[in-house]
């Protein structure tokens, strides 16, 4: 492999790493806040606000319904406003996060909803305020699921980031399409797929390991 090609690989790998890590960080923080909000404002929740809950839920569904490639284009004005440009790696981070936030919010919501209501009742009975319950009961008890959801989220993000080439974001997926597919360099395509498989495997196994570590239910 030529030095320039190797540089391209390294560059693309770093771009993917940047896109994925920054968007995942944004998506998980915001998604978790959304998930907690969805859970506690639900009817019968800690702060029941049924109407607000319905609106939030519909909004989340709307964003989930839009295919990523369309979201990418539709969000161009917002991207320009936030990043100052519509091209490049940072520009891709905006739609990538927007795509993953509602996805992760739903995954985390399911985990939090699975926390035994008896634990919430016990916390109320011992004189916990509502934010104590979020802090000491809902989040710690749902942590294995929240981490499992992160794993799913990061892997989905690695996939979606391949499409970000459409806004000139670069990354491994972009390299695979431009060199491997459009120039018929099957070898490049193949190698990039191998790199992606390796990344996904590493993420999956470390996610599972971490999830097991924080799970004291057994």
């Amino acid at each position, binding site marked *: 492999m030529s030095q320039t090609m190797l540089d391209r690989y390294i560059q693309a790998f770093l771009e993917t790493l940047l896109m994925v890590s920054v968007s995942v960080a944004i998506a998980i923080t915001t998604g978790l806040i959304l998930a907690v909000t969805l859970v506690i404002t639900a009817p019968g929740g800690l702060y029941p606000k049924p109407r607000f809950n319905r609106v939030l839920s519909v909004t989340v569904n709307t964003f989930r319904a839009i295919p990523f490639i369309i979201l990418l284009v539709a969000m161009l004005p917002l991207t320009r406003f936030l990043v100052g440009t519509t091209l490049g790696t940072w520009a891709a981070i905006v739609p990538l996060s927007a795509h993953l936030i509602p996805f992760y919010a739903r995954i985390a919501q399911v985990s939090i909803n699975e926390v035994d209501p008896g634990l919430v*009742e016990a916390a109320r009975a011992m*004189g916990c305020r509502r934010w*104590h319950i979020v802090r000491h009961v809902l989040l710690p008890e749902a942590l294995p699921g929240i981490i499992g959801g992160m794993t799913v989220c990061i892997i989905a993000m690695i996939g979606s980031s391949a499409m970000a080439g459409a806004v000139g974001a670069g990354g491994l997926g972009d390299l695979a399409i431009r060199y491997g597919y459009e120039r018929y360099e099957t070898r490049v395509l193949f190698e990039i797929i191998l790199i992606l498989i390796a990344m996904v495997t590493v993420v999956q196994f470390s996610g599972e390991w971490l999830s097991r570590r924080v799970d004291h239910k057994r």
Partner: protein
Amino acid sequence: MFQFKIDPLQISPEEPIPVSGRNRASAHIVFDNLQKQYAGGVQALRGVSFDIDRGEIFGIIGRSGAGKSTLLRSINMLERPSDGRVVIDGIDVGHLNEDGLVRLRRRIGMIFQHFNLLSAKTVRDNVGLPLRVAGVPASVVRARVDFLLELVGLTDKADVYPAKLSGGQKQRVGIARALVHDPEILLCDEATSALDPETTQSILDLLRDINNKLGLTVVLITHDMAVIRAICDRVLVLDNGEIAEQGDVWHVFGNPRADATRALLRPLQNDLPTDLAEKLLPELNGRKGNAILSLRFTGASHPEGVSLQSLLALAPNAKLLHGGVDRIQGHAQGQMLVAVPVDSIHGNVFTAAFSSDLIKVLGYVPDDAR
């Protein structure tokens, strides 16, 4: 089958239940016409009024769906009643705001059937949580947790996660957690229903011990009369959202009036064994044989015990077939089945009647029956 009641000392069913010298001044928790209607239309409580005294162990028993869980949860307002009041130390807890409720709940400990321990926290952190959220300094929490773990006998499990504990140990952690903020009231929600009999006994002993040592008021709900018999001072029988009966435990056990109470007591009673029931005839029709008598002792007339002599007086060759006497709160009570040859039955039964509160002839077994 006929029945004759003879005992002049027997309490007739019409008489009001004696309240053994309690006065309302000692009431710790007062329930006043409590009602609960759920959104689905289910009426869980239909106007329940009673008092719980300071320092007593008060049992609430009922079949599932009788409303006992709703009743228990109205004490710390985990469930708000639709109507009526719960008054603790003169304060109507239904009118407390969020802050007031948090303060109230820090004076009331609660333990649960399924323990409800946080799986992500160690035993130490579970027990210390009520203090931590109340803003108590870490060093004080640590000392208090150590004291409670010693009280429940789990000092060596402080840094273990609850999943590694047995059911009985989990409930001990639950008790330690409930007592950590030194409450005045302990609520027990079917606290032993998920435990095996031996563990149940040890947890009940612990609760009794805590009640004696710390003098707190214990309110427990259960569907198991044996739990009531083991530790309660007074019992309230709840049936379909209403009070079926209430009173001192020995009294309700010895002389149950409500059908709901009798149904709940059945597993503890010495009913007619099936082999005997099969041979039982309504009359002997001139044949030789034995009358099968059921003698019931309510504990009211002879609380100190049952005289064997008066049992023998039934007939010199009377046979004790089945049954026994329990001592509940210092009152001997129970039921016995006795076989008496019919030739000797006249007259003697009347003598025995003075030691038994209720005699019933269940039927006859002829000598030639197989």
